[in-house]
């Protein structure tokens, strides 16, 4: 059990790689960089696999029990010194450990993160071969792996938050990898700051949990949540879960914090694949799934999660319909798929959500890597309008991407079919059909997904070649280091879904069974509360198989096929200046979608203040300007107003600041006192008899005072 007992080592491998890169990377050869950076991830993957298998043995002996290990106390003292008062007035220790936890949920994440991560590392050796800052890139990637693994393996919220922020940082660094591009650095900033907004919610959520439960360790929180001490619908837990969900929204790009993810495509493509598709963005899902014990106690939060998820799904999918940048389409697709996952979580189908994360990891990574391969082949061109007819030139890419497209479109028996179908079915059946409207949204989204994905495929690989001649001349299939991962991922995209082959189709749904220990208690809670409809997926399946399920299954496959067909009709022969069907049918809708509902602009006007509304700057920068103005004028102020009033009223030109900035408290008194001291100086106009007169006045005054006292 060595490997299980030392799971804390897993994040350290990539951390070591990152440290080596940052300290010595500049002097290292590319081969060495490859060896170190890919090596550590491979080691981490193998370590994870063995640890996972050992955990399976451990779980046999201790059914339902996660494996936990504490390395050291991180925040707080372990000498009982720092206590705080819980909501009920009892003391609790302020203490956070660096502790790790392995259970089925984190095991699944662990495996696909290290696995996909490994593949993407390998892929990157090829993709990035000709880029500057090679070591830097791999250092960031390794750092990312470290953070992600910390996030997954943490046994408490705070350590999870460490990974959470860490992946955000790495995302920032990697988006800004091409830092000399202004758009890249702006996108990086955007990603970090939007994530920070979510993180703020996460932080507050954590504080709420700590205040309410007295601990931030998952097992403690779950234990207390299961203890029946807290009623369903407890407002504090609702608040806590909503706050956590804000965090999830930021990280997993849900409405309204999704805006950073499309921009994040400024990063190198492997980064998009690893971070912005397969792993990091699913952290929100992971966190919500991890907190399932809390969420089930807060139906309002669940409902919110479901609704936000569904809305995000259709919102992003609709934007994806008309985008021309190959990576952007995939980015919106990712946002949309993440919406699906949250929809699943929100309706209580935790297993389904996790399952979709799992399958999505493979096919979305594959899609991104494939698109990377396309871009590689196209000498950096990303606009699909300038592609076409690539299927013969880069066949491996073509075929692997097609597999992924089938998967995402939900065509059986590819992976996506199982997970997406599960989600839609659970949505339909939850709460006795209370979520049917969400199912409708999900269904339409499925249709759109199929359409835009096949649109992407046709525009890229079929139709007429629309690129320029030089580009055409250079088109070549990618090196083996890139195609290898593509093939592996393609295999996974086909097979991964089989793990969750549903009972209705004669399978055993091993996936759900495996996750059972994590979510089983929630099913009990639901049952106890008489909300049988919201049962966790794994539980419900075994009870009965409704004929409706087959109908829905058929419908969703139908959606995939219809989408395929529509795309085939519209784009199979796309030549230069091809027509967009939506633009033809409803130009305003096309414009709206093409401009992404103008959300970025709206944010810039309203929240960031990067753009002015008329002459007024709103948002944070507006506040900043107002505060600066306030600081310069009011706080630092103007008592000297009298002399300066006229100028003040004049123009807002440069000297204004200079004069006004110095003020109320320092220059103010100085000038004021000069004014005030004038009478004192008048008393001293140098005439001796005046002095004598003042003295006599003084004497007269004193005598008068005493006379009339």
């Amino acid at each position, binding site marked *: 059990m060595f490997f299980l007992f030392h799971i804390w080592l897993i994040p350290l491998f990539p951390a070591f790689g990152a440290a080596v890169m940052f300290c010595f990377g500049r002097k290292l050869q590319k081969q060495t960089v490859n060896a170190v950076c890919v090596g550590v991830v491979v080691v981490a993957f193998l370590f994870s696999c063995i640890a996972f298998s050992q955990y399976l043995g451990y779980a046999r002996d201790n059914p339902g029990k996660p494996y936990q290990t504490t390395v050291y106390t991180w925040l707080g003292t372990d000498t009982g010194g720092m206590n705080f008062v819980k909501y009920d007035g009892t003391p609790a220790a302020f203490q956070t450990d660096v502790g790790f936890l392995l259970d089925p949920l984190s095991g699944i994440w662990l495996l696909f993160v290290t696995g996909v991560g490994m593949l993407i590392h390998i892929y990157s050796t090829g993709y990035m071969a000709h880029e500057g800052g090679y070591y830097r890139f791999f250092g960031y990637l390794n750092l990312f792996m470290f953070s992600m693994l910390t996030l997954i393996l943490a046994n408490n919220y705070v350590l999870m938050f460490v990974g959470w922020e860490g992946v955000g940082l790495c995302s920032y660094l990697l988006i800004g990898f091409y830092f000399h591009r202004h758009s890249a650095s702006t996108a990086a900033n955007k990603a970090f700051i939007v994530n920070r907004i979510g993180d703020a919610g996460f932080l507050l959520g954590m504080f709420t949990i700590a205040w309410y439960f007295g601990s931030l360790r998952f097992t403690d929180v779950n234990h207390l949540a299961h203890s029946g001490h807290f009623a369903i619908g407890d407002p504090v837990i609702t608040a806590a879960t909503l706050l956590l969900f804000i965090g999830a929204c930021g990280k997993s790009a849900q409405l309204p914090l999704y805006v950073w993810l499309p921009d994040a495509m400024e990063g190198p493509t492997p980064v998009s694949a690893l971070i912005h598709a397969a792993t990091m963005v699913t952290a929100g899902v992971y966190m919500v799934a991890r907190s399932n014990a809390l969420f089930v106690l807060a139906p309002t939060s669940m409902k919110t999660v479901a609704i936000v998820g569904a809305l995000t799904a259709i919102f992003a999918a609709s934007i994806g319909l008309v985008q021309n940048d190959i990576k952007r389409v995939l980015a919106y697709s990712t946002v949309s798929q993440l919406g699906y996952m949250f929809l699943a979580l929100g309706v209580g189908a935790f297993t389904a959500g996790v399952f979709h994360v799992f399958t999505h990891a493979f096919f979305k990574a594959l899609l991104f890597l494939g698109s990377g391969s396309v871009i590689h082949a196209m000498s950096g061109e990303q606009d699909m309008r300038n592609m076409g007819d690539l299927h013969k030139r880069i066949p491996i890419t073509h075929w692997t991407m097609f597999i992924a497209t089938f998967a995402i479109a939900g065509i059986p028996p590819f992976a996506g079919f199982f997970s997406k179908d599960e989600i839609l079915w659970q949505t339909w059946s939850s709460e006795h059909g209370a979520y049917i409207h969400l199912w409708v949204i999900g269904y339409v989204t499925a249709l759109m997904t199929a359409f835009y994905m096949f649109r992407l495929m046709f525009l890229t690989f079929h139709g007429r070649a629309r690129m320029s001649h030089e580009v055409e001349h250079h088109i070549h299939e990618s090196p083996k280091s890139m195609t290898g991962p593509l093939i592996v991922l393609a295999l996974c995209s086909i097979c991964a879904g089989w793990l969750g082959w549903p009972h209705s189709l004669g399978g055993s749904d091993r996936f759900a069974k495996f996750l059972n220990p994590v979510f089983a208690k929630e099913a009990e809670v639901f049952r106890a509360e008489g909300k049988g409809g919201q049962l966790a997926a794994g539980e419900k399946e075994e009870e009965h198989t409704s004929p409706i399920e087959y109908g829905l299954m058929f419908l969703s496959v139908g959606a995939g096929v219809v989408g395929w067909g529509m795309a085939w009709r519209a784009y199979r022969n796309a030549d230069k200046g091809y027509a967009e069907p939506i633009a033809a049918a409803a130009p305003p809708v096309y414009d709206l979608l093409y401009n992404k509902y103008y959300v970025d602009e709206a944010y810039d006007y309203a929240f960031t203040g990067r753009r002015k509304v008329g002459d007024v700057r709103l948002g944070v920068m507006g506040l900043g300007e107002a505060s600066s103005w306030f600081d310069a004028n009011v706080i630092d102020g103007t008592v000297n107003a009298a002399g300066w009033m006229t100028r003040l009223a004049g123009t807002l030109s440069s000297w204004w600041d200079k004069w006004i900035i110095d003020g109320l408290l320092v220059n103010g008194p100085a000038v004021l006192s000069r004014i005030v001291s004038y009478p004192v100086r008048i008393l001293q106009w140098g*005439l001796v*008899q005046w002095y004598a*007169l003042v003295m*006599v006045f003084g*004497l007269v005054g004193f*005598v008068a005072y005493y*006379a009339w006292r």
Partner: protein
Amino acid sequence: MQPVATTFFFYFLSGITVLSGILVITRNNAVHSALALILGLLAQAGLYLMLYAPFVAGVQIILYAGGIMVLFLFVIMLVNLERAQKEEQFNKQWLVGLLAAVALGGLLFAVYVKGGTLFTEHIAQPVENSNTQQIGVMLYGNYMFAFEIASLLLLVAIIGAVVMAKKRI
């Protein structure tokens, strides 16, 4: 020596004193002022005599009227006052100054009227004889040290006057 016609002499002498005081501060010609002052000092010496202070009266006449005023007259001659005599004699603040002084005087007067009873009750115990002798005893007794210091004061005054007035020391 019993006082005779006290009331008359008092009003007469004090009238002269005050009048000459007024003259001192109103004359254009500084010499006239000085002469008026001398007159006033003499009248005051008369008042001292009425107050049984013959020694002080003598000092007043000899030292003040005789000594100090001569010094004044010398200086008036020394600094050419022809020009000053023709100019405006009062400064620009004279009205304010006058008012302030009159206010002060009014207050003093009011105070004396209100609290003067203090000084009307004690009727003088005339110390007639050997006034000079007793003053001498006091000067060399009680006030011996002050007397010595006063001599230094005069010395310093001499040094000062010399230092200031002499062209080259």
